[in-house]
C-alpha cells in the first residue's frame, strides 16, 4: 500500500485533503490509491442534503454535525457549489456557516465545485465519499448545490436524502410536481421562524396522502436554525430512516445502486477522456474524411464504424 493510502486510512487530514485534490484533478496517481482504499470503506452513514439555494442547507448541516459530534461520531462534510460555466472558476462559500467546526479534529469539511457536472453533484463525489469513509468518518453529509426542480442525482449516493424547503415557495401544485419532490426520505421545512410554515407542512402532508399507504411515510420536520428548533427531531428521524433501511433490506439495494452509479460514472469518464482526447480522436476520424468528401461514405455510417472500433 502507498504511503498516501495508509495515511488516509489512518485519518491524517493533510493526506485526506491531498487525495481529494488528486481525484478532483483526475490525476493518475489517484487511481492507485482509490483501488487500495476501497476495502476499508462501507462503514459510514451517508446523508444527502438538497434543496433550493438559500434554503439554509449549510447552516442546517452545521447544526446536524454538532449533534453527531455530541454522540461521539466523526463527521465528514462535502459541500458542493457551482463552477462557473464561463470562467471555470468557483466561489465555494458553504463553509462560512460551518467555521466553528474547523478546529474540531473530529470533523473534516471539503468544499467542491461542480466542474461541469449536471445533476447538482460533482463527478469526483463518489471517490470523495469513499475517501472520507476509509478515513474513518462515521457520518458523511453531502450538501448539493442549490437545486432547481430536477437535479436529483444525490439519491444515487446517499442512504438518506433530506429535501430542504422553506415556507412560501408556491402552492400545492408545486408539491405534486415530479423531480425534487419525489426523492425525499425526509422533508425539512427550514426557516420555520418565518410565516407560512403550517401551510407548507400541510401541503406536503396532503401530497403524501395522495401517494397512499406505503410502508415508509416520509416524515416532515419543521426546523429553525435561528431559534434552534427541530434539530433533535430531525436527527431522530434520520436515525429512524436508517433503522427502516436496515430492517426492510432497502439499505443493501441502495448501496448496490450507489456502486452501480459509481461504476457507470468511472466508465463514462474514461470513455469521455478517450473521445475528448482531440488529437487521438482526430487521428481516428481522419481516415474517413476523404471518403466522406468523395461521397463514398456518409458521415453516419462513418460514425458507426468509428464507434464500433472504439467500443470493441
Amino acid at each position, binding site marked *: 500500500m502507498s504511503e498516501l493510502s495508509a495515511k488516509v486510512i489512518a485519518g491524517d487530514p493533510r493526506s485526506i485533503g491531498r487525495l481529494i485534490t488528486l481525484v478532483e484533478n*483526475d490525476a493518475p496517481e489517484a487511481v492507485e490509491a482509490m483501488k487500495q482504499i476501497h476495502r476499508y470503506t462501507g462503514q459510514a452513514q451517508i446523508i444527502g442534503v438538497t434543496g433550493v439555494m438559500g434554503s439554509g442547507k449549510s447552516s442546517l448541516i452545521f447544526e446536524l454535525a454538532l449533534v453527531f459530534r455530541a454522540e461521539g461520531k466523526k463527521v465528514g462534510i462535502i459541500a458542493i457549489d457551482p463552477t*462557473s460555466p464561463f*470562467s471555470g*472558476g468557483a466561489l*465555494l462559500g458553504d463553509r462560512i456557516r460551518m467555521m466553528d467546526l*474547523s*478546529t474540531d479534529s473530529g470533523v473534516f469539511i471539503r*468544499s467542491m465545485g461542480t466542474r461541469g457536472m449536471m445533476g447538482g453533484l460533482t463527478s469526483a463525489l463518489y471517490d470523495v465519499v469513499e475517501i472520507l469513509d476509509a478515513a474513518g468518518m462515521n457520518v458523511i453529509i453531502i450538501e448539493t448545490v442549490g437545486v432547481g426542480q430536477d437535479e436529483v442525482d444525490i439519491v444515487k449516493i446517499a442512504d438518506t436524502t433530506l429535501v430542504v424547503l422553506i415556507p412560501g415557495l408556491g402552492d400545492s401544485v408545486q408539491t405534486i410536481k415530479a423531480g425534487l419532490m419525489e426523492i425525499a426520505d425526509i422533508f425539512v421545512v427550514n426557516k420555520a421562524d418565518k410565516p407560512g410554515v403550517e401551510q407548507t407542512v400541510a401541503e406536503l402532508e396532503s401530497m403524501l396522502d395522495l401517494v397512499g399507504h406505503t410502508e415508509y411515510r416520509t416524515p416532515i420536520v419543521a426546523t429553525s436554525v435561528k431559534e434552534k428548533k427541530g434539530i433533535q427531531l430531525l436527527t431522530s428521524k434520520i436515525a429512524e430512516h436508517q433503522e427502516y433501511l436496515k430492517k426492510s433490506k432497502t439499505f443493501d439495494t441502495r448501496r448496490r445502486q450507489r456502486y452501480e452509479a459509481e461504476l457507470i460514472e468511472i466508465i463514462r469518464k474514461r470513455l469521455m477522456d478517450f473521445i475528448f482526447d482531440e488529437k487521438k480522436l482526430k487521428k481516428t476520424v481522419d481516415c474517413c474524411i476523404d471518403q466522406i468528401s468523395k461521397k463514398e461514405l456518409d458521415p453516419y455510417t462513418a460514425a458507426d464504424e468509428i464507434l464500433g472500433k472504439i467500443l470493441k
Partner: protein
Amino acid sequence: MIKKIRVLVAKPGLDGHDRGAKIVARALRDAGMEVVYTGLHQTAQQIVNTAIQEDVDVVGLSLLSGAHMTLFIDVALLLKEKQMDDVLIVGGGIIPQQDVPGLKKAGIAEVFGPGTPVEDIVSYIKKNVKR
C-alpha cells in the same frame, strides 16, 4: 488531468470589513480559480485547518484593522508548523509600507495595498503558485 488553482481567502481577527476580500475572491473566481471564502473573524488555527482540509495552493489574508503583524505572521508560522510550506501566502488590506519587509521575512510572499488592480493579484498568483 485538470489542475485548478485553489485559493483560501481568509479574514483573520476582529475586522468586519470584507468588501475587499469579496472583490478579490470574485476576481479570482473569474480567472478560473476555485476560491474558498472563510467569512469574518477567523483565528489562525481555523484558517490553517481550513487550508489543510481544502488542500489549497494559496492562502490570501485580508486585514484592515492594523493587527497584521501579529495575525498574518501567526498564520504563516502555523502553516509552516503543519508542513504546509508549499502554500503561497499573500496579504492585502491597510498595510503600512514599513511593515512589508517584516511580513515578507515571515513568509508572506507579497502584500497588495489599496488601489492594486485585481489583474495584478491574479497574474501574481498564476506566476508564483508553488505547485
